[in-house]
């Protein structure tokens, strides 16, 4: 992601100077969270941030979005996308969407590794396992591609719901907000909704217009930062691909 960051930074710095306006550097995940909070009206949610590049469970405490758990290898969206390639599932409109549709026709739950490690999760082993066994199982008629889509979704989403629930228990939180591209998945929303209902908590989720990366989320987080008095000087506006969610001081919340 170095090249797109460099491009947008150069343009943003130029425009800020041309128009003599303040510049604000925004953390990507904080963009997702702030837009999600604004769009759904969630007040102080436990956040599940799931996309092609990140998988984190986050809760706010004392001016930081703190990471309670995360993937120790690949992101859940990356796991789904690569699984789609193994099964030669179409990229149109997106691999995740097609997996979701196929999963609705799944009949059989194929047992897959369930890899929750404390508050963290791991997806690379599940992917390797599927890569190894899927073609054999499909050739022998042991299961269908739809069964595999269904089984993979059920397994990885159950893992995500588990660590989200544990974070809620830690914080005494009664709200969950799902953000990031994988957050579009209605089955994930449904499973999270069941967990929330059992705990008397409330689920906040959005559709693909807000889940998928967009400029408005950066604008919203930037606006919150600006309102609380932050600006980024040109010298401090260097880009980085290693900018963790908990590095940001959240000056706009109590």
């Amino acid at each position: 992601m170095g090249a797109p960051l460099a491009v947008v930074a150069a343009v943003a710095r130029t425009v800020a100077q041309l128009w003599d306006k303040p510049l604000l550097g925004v953390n990507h995940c904080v963009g997702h969270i702030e837009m999600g909070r604004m769009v759904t009206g969630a007040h102080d949610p436990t956040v599940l941030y799931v996309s092609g590049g990140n998988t984190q469970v986050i809760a706010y405490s004392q001016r930081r979005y703190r990471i309670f758990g995360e993937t120790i290898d690949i992101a859940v969206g990356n796991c789904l996308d690569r699984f789609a390639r193994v099964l030669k599932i179409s990229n149109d409109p997106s691999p995740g969407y097609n997996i979701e549709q196929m999963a609705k026709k799944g009949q059989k739950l194929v047992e897959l590794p369930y890899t929750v490690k404390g508050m963290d999760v791991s997806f690379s082993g599940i992917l390797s396992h599927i890569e190894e066994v899927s073609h054999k199982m499909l050739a022998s008629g042991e299961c269908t591609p739809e069964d595999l889509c269904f089984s993979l979704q059920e397994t990885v989403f159950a893992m995500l719901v588990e660590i989200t629930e544990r974070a809620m228990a830690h914080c005494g939180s009664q709200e969950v907000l799902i953000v990031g591209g994988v957050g579009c998945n209605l089955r994930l929303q449904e499973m999270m909704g069941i967990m929330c209902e059992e705990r008397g908590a409330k689920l906040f989720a959005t559709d693909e217009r807000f889940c998928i990366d967009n400029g408005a989320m950066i604008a919203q987080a930037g606006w919150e930062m600006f309102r609380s008095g932050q600006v980024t000087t040109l010298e401090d506006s260097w880009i980085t691909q290693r900018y963790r969610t908990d590095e940001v001081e959240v000056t706009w919340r109590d």
Partner: protein
Amino acid sequence: MEVQRALEFTLSVPFPSPLNARIAHGALSPDPEPRKAEVSKELTVVENLLHVRWRAAEARLLRVSINSFLDHLGLVVETMEQFGPPVPR
């Protein structure tokens, strides 16, 4: 230990005004060279000219750095054309 930087390259880019040159400087300066130890790049502004001076030990690294700089410079110039001229201040 000072790395040997045998190769040098300089570039002077004229802008329509000193302010435009300063804006380009501000837009292109913040990001550090990915391989700081092996390539150094200095940007300065004199009047309406943006001066850039590279020093590097290896031609390969020098070329990569110059190429990337020219790409970003082109982007900044296009942005100025699209969204400029600078507001009076």
